[in-house]
Structures are given as structure tokens and as C-alpha cells.
């Protein structure tokens, strides 16, 4: 196969030290094919996202329409005699006219009124629903998200705002043991419990978000802090049996977590930590995950030892070197560790499933699961909830792409 290869000396590329060949047609077609394939692939990947978001914005009735629509639409509404009615078209006497649906009989028939400015205006007819064609407009139903965030309840149980509830609690506190008008139990609970109850009945997903954030951030801090110190020990300090322990560390990466799952469960339940956040956060402080230790150690070892020595000459001790030299240098990897830790704990499902019981303690992952249990066919709500749970990670990914990729690369290529 003969290709035209003429070396063109391009001044810009000279500076970079490259030589650019003139692109042949085969190269250009190869590039085009590549591009087409990538676009097709991207579209395929994006379709589930699109489906999720568009389903989340649809009216429940539209979800089950077949064939389904691509864009969420709602029926146009028009006011007739002060009542909001759906707008449709109907074939009357050979002509198609716009009608307002004033009564829905519920048995497949609707009473409609022909609108003004058309032949037979004002006339009311009762027709089969199938004869009507709804006039729809593209209208995403954002209320689905509110409904989902309220735990699938369309209208909140009561109208009390948070502030009013807190005030009532304060009143009940002052009334102490007396039967207060706002409920006898209100005075016995703590402020936090009062807030939690209100959140649980009005905006449960806000509570779940709070839980997830708490667990994730505590665990994140634990992992970053302990992994960075342990890795420092392995990387920079000479102590007896260091290599032995390091081999032990590496081999635990191979251990499937299922092996230790049950005994660890027993340990935590014996400690009385069932249905608390402790089993999900405390282990993070003890080594922070072998993988992160390994990653950090490899990175520390690329920091020139001269910097350590310079600090030592200036009088820094081992921990001084760690704090002043190693840590600042390791910021990129630490960021990667933080991000992966965040991702892992935010997405964790089995952990909360095993260790959490009370509804108020649920994390977002667990909440989605029970949401599905309660609303198995309310797909619009399910998709709205799923979107909400995915959103923080999407945002995080877009902002910190570099660190995600970097982390995966280091672990995969050098692992």
C-alpha cells in the first residue's frame, strides 16, 4: 500500500522537534471513521441518561404511553367557567374542532364543550375518550422532583414549616412534664430529634443526604489522614520487619471482602454498633484502605530524598518532614485519594444495607432502594430520585476529572 509521505518542515513543529507528514486520504478516512464510531458510542452511552431524565420529567400517565414520547409533554389546559380543563381536538361533522374536556366520567367517556370561534361553538357532547386527541405541549414536570424528594408524597403531611415546629418544641420544652397542646411527647425529645422527625415527614431525602454526607466526609477524613501516615511509614522510615509488613499489606488487596464480612459484622454488633454510623466510619481511620496506602507510598517514593535531608539539616524531625515536606508535595495524590474515598463511600450500598436499620438513618443509596420498594411502578418518581442521587457525583466528576483519571491511571498502569 503506497502512502504519500512527504516530510513537511513546519516551523511550529520544528520547535517541538516533530516532523509532520501530509495527511493522506486513507488517514483522513480513518479519522472520519474513528470520529463516527466515537459519536455512535457516545450516543449509546448517553441514551440511558437521557431516558432517565426525560422519564423523570414526565407526567405519570405519559410514562406508560406506547409508543413513548421523546420529550416530556403535558396536555394544554384552558380555563372554562373558572375550571381548568384539558384541551383536545375532536372531529365533529367532518371538521376538526378544539374542545375543552369539562367532565371526565371515568368510564372512558368525557363530556366536552366546543370552544368559541368555531363552528358549533358552545355545544357540549359526550364522546369516547378514544375520539379525542389531546393537544399537548412540551412541558417538563419539574414537580416530580419535589414529590420524589418528599419521599413520594405528593402533598406534605402538614403545613408546618421547620421554624414553627422548632418553636413548638421550645414551648413544649418549657412546659416540661405538663400535657402541652402541641403533643405530649414533644417536650421529651431533643432538638435534633425534633428536626429529624420534621425532615423525615416533610423532606426525607434531605435527611438522607445529611446522613450520606456525614458518613462520607468522616470516612474520607479518616482514610486520607491514616493512609497518608501509614504510607509515610512504609516509604520513608526504616524499621524492623518493614518489608514483611509491606508484603502482608499487598496480599490483603487480594482478599475478597466477603471473607471478613461476617466476623466484622459480629464484632460490630457485639459492640452494640448496629444501626449506628460507626461501622461505616471507624474502619476508615485504621489504615484507610490498603489500596490508598499503596498508592501513596508509591508516590512518596518519587519525592526526592534530598528534600527530606534538607529539612533534617534544618532541624525537622520525622514528623516535621512528613508535615512540611511530604504532605505538601503529595497534594495531587491526596486529592485523588479523597475523591475515590468520597466516591466509594457515597456509592456504598452493602455497608448501609447490613449495618443500618432505622429509616431516619438511611443513606441515599439505601433510600433509593426502599423508595423502589414503596413506589415500584412510579417510574417518574424513581427516575427523579435516581437523578438526584447521581447528581453530586456527576458534578464532582466534572470538577475533578483530572484526579479521577489520574488515580485510575496510576493504579492501573503501575499496579
Amino acid at each position: 500500500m503506497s502512502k504519500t509521505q512527504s516530510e513537511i518542515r513546519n516551523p511550529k513543529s520544528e520547535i517541538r522537534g516533530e516532523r509532520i507528514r501530509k495527511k493522506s486520504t486513507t488517514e483522513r478516512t480513518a479519522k472520519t471513521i474513528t470520529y463516527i464510531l466515537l459519536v455512535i458510542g457516545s450516543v449509546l452511552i448517553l441514551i440511558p441518561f437521557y431516558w432517565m431524565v426525560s422519564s423523570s420529567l414526565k407526567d405519570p400517565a405519559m410514562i406508560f404511553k406506547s409508543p413513548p414520547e421523546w420529550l416530556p409533554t403535558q396536555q394544554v389546559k384552558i380555563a372554562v367557567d373558572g375550571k381548568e380543563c384539558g384541551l383536545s381536538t375532536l372531529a365533529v361533522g367532518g371538521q376538526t374542532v378544539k374542545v375543552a374536556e369539562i367532565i371526565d366520567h371515568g368510564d372512558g367517556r368525557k363530556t366536552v364543550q366546543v370552544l368559541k370561534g368555531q363552528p358549533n361553538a358552545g355545544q357540549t357532547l359526550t364522546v369516547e375518550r378514544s375520539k379525542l386527541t389531546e393537544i399537548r405541549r412540551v412541558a417538563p414536570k419539574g414537580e416530580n422532583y419535589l414529590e420524589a424528594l418528599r419521599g413520594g408524597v405528593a402533598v406534605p403531611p402538614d403545613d408546618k414549616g421547620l421554624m414553627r415546629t422548632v418553636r413548638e418544641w421550645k414551648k413544649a420544652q418549657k412546659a416540661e412534664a405538663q400535657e402541652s397542646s402541641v403533643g405530649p411527647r414533644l417536650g421529651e425529645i431533643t432538638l435534633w430529634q425534633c428536626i429529624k422527625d420534621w425532615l423525615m415527614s416533610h423532606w426525607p431525602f434531605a435527611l438522607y443526604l445529611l446522613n450520606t454526607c456525614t458518613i462520607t466526609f468522616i470516612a474520607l477524613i479518616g482514610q486520607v489522614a491514616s493512609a497518608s501516615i501509614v504510607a509515610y511509614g512504609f516509604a520513608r522510615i526504616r524499621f524492623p520487619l518493614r518489608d514483611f509488613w509491606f508484603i502482608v499489606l499487598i496480599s490483603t488487596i487480594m482478599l475478597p471482602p466477603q471473607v471478613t464480612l461476617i466476623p466484622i459484622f459480629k464484632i460490630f454488633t457485639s459492640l452494640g454498633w448496629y444501626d449506628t454510623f460507626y461501622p461505616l466510619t471507624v474502619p476508615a481511620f485504621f489504615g484507610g484502605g490498603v489500596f490508598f496506602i499503596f498508592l501513596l507510598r508509591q508516590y512518596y517514593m518519587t519525592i526526592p530524598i534530598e528534600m527530606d535531608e534538607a529539612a533534617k539539616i534544618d532541624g525537622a524531625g520525622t514528623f516535621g518532614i512528613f508535615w512540611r515536606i511530604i504532605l505538601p508535595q503529595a497534594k495531587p495524590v491526596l486529592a485523588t485519594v479523597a475523591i475515590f474515598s468520597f466516591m466509594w463511600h457515597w456509592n456504598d450500598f452493602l455497608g448501609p444495607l447490613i449495618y443500618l436499620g432505622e429509616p431516619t438513618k438511611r443513606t441515599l443509596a439505601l433510600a433509593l432502594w426502599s423508595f423502589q420498594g414503596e413506589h415500584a411502578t412510579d417510574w417518574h418518581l424513581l427516575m427523579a430520585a435516581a437523578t438526584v442521587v447521581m447528581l453530586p457525583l456527576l458534578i464532582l466528576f466534572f470538577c475533578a476529572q483530572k484526579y479521577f483519571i489520574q488515580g485510575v491511571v496510576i493504579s492501573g498502569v503501575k499496579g
Partner: protein
Amino acid sequence: MGKPRMSRLARKEAIEGYVCILPWLLGFLVFTFGPMIFSIYIAMCDWDIINPPKFIGLANFQQALFDDFRFAQAIKVTITYAIFALPLGLTGSLLVAILLNQNVRGMNWFRTIFYIPAVLPGIAVAMVWRWIFNPENGILNVFLRSKLIPAGLPHFVHGKLTIPTLPVIPEPPAWLATPEWALPAFVIMSLWGIGGGMIIYLAGLQSIPTQLYEAAEIDGASPIQKFRKITLPMISPTIFFNLVMGVIGSFQVFTSSFVMTGGGPAYATLFYLLYLYQKAFQYFQMGYAAAMAWILFVIILVCTLVIFKTSAAWVYYEAELKGKR
């Protein structure tokens, strides 16, 4: 500078070293080593976590390996899944990585789009795909039922130019509701996460020195030859890594099967970890579950060893030849 002073310094370093790794060491003993020993003991017991464990020797293992059809099914499901999802996933992500490595414009966008599914919470992904696989209204079956295949010549009907079309697949399967198509549905779903492996391949591809390709071109190599003789060998360590990770990963499938099918229909999607969970937390047979965990450990060990051993034949480590690093 006598000996005593040296050992004092060494001792100080030793203390500091152990202080540093103390969090991990404690964690290892309490959360890894201790539980491992405990778990071996439990695996040989009958234990429902309320009553004290009752020693029964190897009965759990015996029952699992020879007497439990659900265990056999769990193994079958997980291995079948691995056999299909792994090669497809590995080749797919490699292909995408190669495509992305071509210096196309907007590479960052494509890379982002492909990688994002791998980052998302498993439960949310499972829910979305459950909806996608919905037999009546899910987008997959709607697409398959839609009439897109041209089946005749264009002609006029009622004054409009139409082409008679046929549906792609007139009666698409009910996916998660059928025993035959539930597992393939999981395989399809796993392909959505192809971006995870793709990133690793990309990094591997980008570390291949371009001089190799240039030298090959000078010698007149075709693109296919370049791929077979340069690209593949140079990324074989990455393939190796992804393969090992993939094998381990297919035994870790839990959330999707738990959320989407609960193991059914007819145990068609009873993944190993799901069955283990059921045994431990639904049937309260912790001993049995522990035994399952150890069997799993052995399986993974064997698989990894096999892959390691055969790797000598097909994995090419440049470092060995050139002795660098």
C-alpha cells in the same frame, strides 16, 4: 561514635515507624487477620448469630459443594456472566481506548462521556436499567419494536411517500422477567460501564513509545501488523491487570442483582455474593455463608494463579528486557 549511639537512633526510627503504621497494623489485626481466623472457625460451624456457634466440621463445605443446587446455580450464574461480560468488556474498552487515542478533536469530551457510568452509584444505575429493560415501556424494547428495517420499495400511500418497514425485533424478550434473558440483560448493562477499563487502557496506550510505530512504518508495516506486533504486546500488562480485576469483579456483583431481580427469575441471576448475603442475612446461616466466602477465596486464588502462570506466555514486560526502573 560507638555502637550504643547507633542503636539508639535506629531504635528511635523503629518506634516512629511503628507509630506511623500503627493505624494500619491495628486495623489489620482487628479487621482483617482476626476476622480471617474467626471466619475459618465459623465456616465449620452452624451459627445463626443469636445462639452460640455449633461446631460441625466440614459439613457446610460438603453441603455447598455437593448438596446445594442453589450454590451450584450461583457458581454457574457468576461464571457464565464472567465468560460473557469479561471478553466483551475487555475488548470493548480496548477498542474504545484505541479510538480515543487517535488524537481526535474533543477527545476530552468523549473520554468523559464514556467514563461517567463507571462512577455512578450502583443502585441508581440498577434502577435506571430496570426501567430500560421494562418489557412494555422500556426504551430498549420500544426501540426493538419500532419499525426501522426497510422491507420494500418506497411507494405512494394516500398521496404520501412511504417506505414499508418492519420492526427490528417484533417480539422482543421480556428481559429481566425471563430466565433466559435476565443474565444477558446484566451483561448488556455491564457494557455501559466500559469506560472504567478504557481509561486504564488509554494510559497504557499512551505510554507506548512512538518510535516503535515509526520504526515499523519505515519497515512498511500495515496498521494491522502494527497492532498485532506493537500495540498488543505493549499493553499486555494492562490487559493482564484488567483481566485479573475483571475476574475478581464478577464475583463482587451484588447491588444490581439485589435491586433488579433479587436473584430470579428461577435463580437465573443468583450471583455468588447475592446468595452469600441471602444465606447470612436472610436465612441466618452465617456458618454456611462463611464457608461460601472461603470457597470463593480459593476460586479467586486459583483463577489468579492460572492467569499469572499463563501470563508468562503472553504478557510482555519491557522492564525485564531492558532492566530499567
